[in-house]
């Protein structure tokens, strides 16, 4: 599961049982420099399909590259996981798999099951987990074990994730003897990647950056740092110009090799991006702009509801509170208080954010014979 996706859970919590989604399709050009290739250029297409709710996460993605020398590479990745929320904790179980195919080599694949424990608050979280599975390379199968932990924080459109992950598996290495004999042998490898991932968005522009340091503690993999950055500018809500540049390290779990890359693409999205056109934050409720209703509740009580957009504090005073200021509680977009009172007419006033006492906007005013006016609220 992508931890950018997990970070989005904080906000997804506000829309329980609703699915968040991301669907993009990229088509563009790539410049690729692999250790075993000369510089090549080519056509690159990529797709991402992601759906997640408070409990379920589904991700499928794929990319295909055809380079100028005629070779092609395609990779498909998928993951599915289920989370069980328990107070501030999330317990996650899932599986991730991928298939990599190239026109000049046999397919490689891996399948890993994993479990994680998350500690989540509104704007930050941490996780620890581990998993195991198999890696299929050149018609051989190897075991694989993974472990990972990390923390993330989010503020508005900015996210930062720090993580460490360890992998223990095997890969195929080429041994060339002095007599020219070439052997493909299994080589156990183990390494730990420490990474920092940032995401930011400013209006139509969004950027992702990765910094990673690999420490290989078994096998011939290189211990090396790397970095990558990608950006997109949403020309329309559903189309962006996207680019990425960086260096990927070899990934024995996916079968990919170390390479430098630069891409530019047109990105099409099924969802709207860029500046979100939301209604402007409602201005603070001005005197008299708040409205009030009273509805009968069980036990002979009534619930008084006040609509006061933008208010931070709402108080009610009237004969039904014995003319004592009574604070209302925020419930969703409204303010409420439950009172025991009689049916019929009542005199009420409201105070918004500690201002002056005012007559609710939807009530008729009647003279209070004390030099002012009150609102007449009829409770059915």
């Amino acid at each position, binding site marked *: 599961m992508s931890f950018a996706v997990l970070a989005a859970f904080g906000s997804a919590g506000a829309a329980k049982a609703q699915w968040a989604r991301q669907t993009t399709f990229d088509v563009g050009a790539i410049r690729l420099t692999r250790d075993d290739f000369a510089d090549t250029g080519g056509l690159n297409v990529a797709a991402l399909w992601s759906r997640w709710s408070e409990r379920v996460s589904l991700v499928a993605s794929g990319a295909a590259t055809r380079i100028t020398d005629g070779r092609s590479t395609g990779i498909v990745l998928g993951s599915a996981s289920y989370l069980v929320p328990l107070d501030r904790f999330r317990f996650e179980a899932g599986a991730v798999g991928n298939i990599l195919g190239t026109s000049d080599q046999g397919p490689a694949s891996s399948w890993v099951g994993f479990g994680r424990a998350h500690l989540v608050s509104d704007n930050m979280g941490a996780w620890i987990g581990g998993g195991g599975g198999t890696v299929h390379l050149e018609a051989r199968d190897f075991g694989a074990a993974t472990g990972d932990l990390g923390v993330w924080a989010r503020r508005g459109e900015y996210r930062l994730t720090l993580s460490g992950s360890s992998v223990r598996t095997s890969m195929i290495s080429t041994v060339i003897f002095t007599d020219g004999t070439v052997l493909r042998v299994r080589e156990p490898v183990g390494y730990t990647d420490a990474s920092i991932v940032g995401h930011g968005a400013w209006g139509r522009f969004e950027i992702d950056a990765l910094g990673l340091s690999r420490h290989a503690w078994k096998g011939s993999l290189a211990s090396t740092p790397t970095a990558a950055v990608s950006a997109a500018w949403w020309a329309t809500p559903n189309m962006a110009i996207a680019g990425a540049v960086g260096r990927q390290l070899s990934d024995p779990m996916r079968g990919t090799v170390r390479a430098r890359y630069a891409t530019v693409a047109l990105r099409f999205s099924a969802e709207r991006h860029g500046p979100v056109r939301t209604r402007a934050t409602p201005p603070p409720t001005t005197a008299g702009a708040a409205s009030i209703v009273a509805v009968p509740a069980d036990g002979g009580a009534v619930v008084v509801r006040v609509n006061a957009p933008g208010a931070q504090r709402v108080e009610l005073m009237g004969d039904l509170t*014995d*003319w004592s200021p009574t604070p209302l509680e925020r419930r969703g977009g409204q303010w409420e208080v439950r009172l025991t009172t*009689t*049916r*019929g*007419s009542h005199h009420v006033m409201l105070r918004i954010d500690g201002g002056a006492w005012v007559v609710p906007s939807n009530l008729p005013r009647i003279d209070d014979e004390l030099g002012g006016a009150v609102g007449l609220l*009829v409770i*059915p």
Partner: protein
Amino acid sequence: MMRIRHLLAASVIAAGGSALEAQTSAGLDSATMNAIAPIIQRARASNLPLDLLYTRARQGQVQRLPASRIEVAVRNYAERLETAQAALAPNPTTPELKAGVDALQTGVPRETLSEMRRAAKEGSLAVPLGILTTLVARGVSVEKASVQVVALLQQGASPAHFIALDQRVQADVLAGRRPDESLDLRLKGIFPNLPQSVNAGDAATLQAGGTKRPR
């Protein structure tokens, strides 16, 4: 022995009444209490609900008004309370009296209150009186509002009907319609659905001839 029991019962009731009064007058300062004491004494003799008067006094005290001004407001209120009590006889409830006082204050004649009592028979008038006051405060003429509210009661309108009527008139007035015109319009949608409904023409006849017009 029986007499002692009656005395004990009367003492308990009196003690209860005093406790209630002490509770409802709680929070009033001594100056206000002294100022309204004669009004309270007279109201008690007339069997008016004292808590309404204390609430009125508390409203003035919350506004930090001088006791003399509170006294005037409480006296005016008590006078209307007495009028409402008589108009809503024989056994008006406190919510009815409270709503009746508001209606009187907005200019509704006491005769309308009496007509409403007759029209409602056993039903509570707390909500109909409240809506009558509301309609008048929204700009409907006192005469038209009074006639129509009485007619609604005669045809068995429920509190829900009155609430719905007020909501529709409110929406119309906000939209710019004249209050009297809105009331006429909205009543056409309510009268046919009342338990003792007659058609619209009969309703008009009933309102004109069957109901004593308030002065």
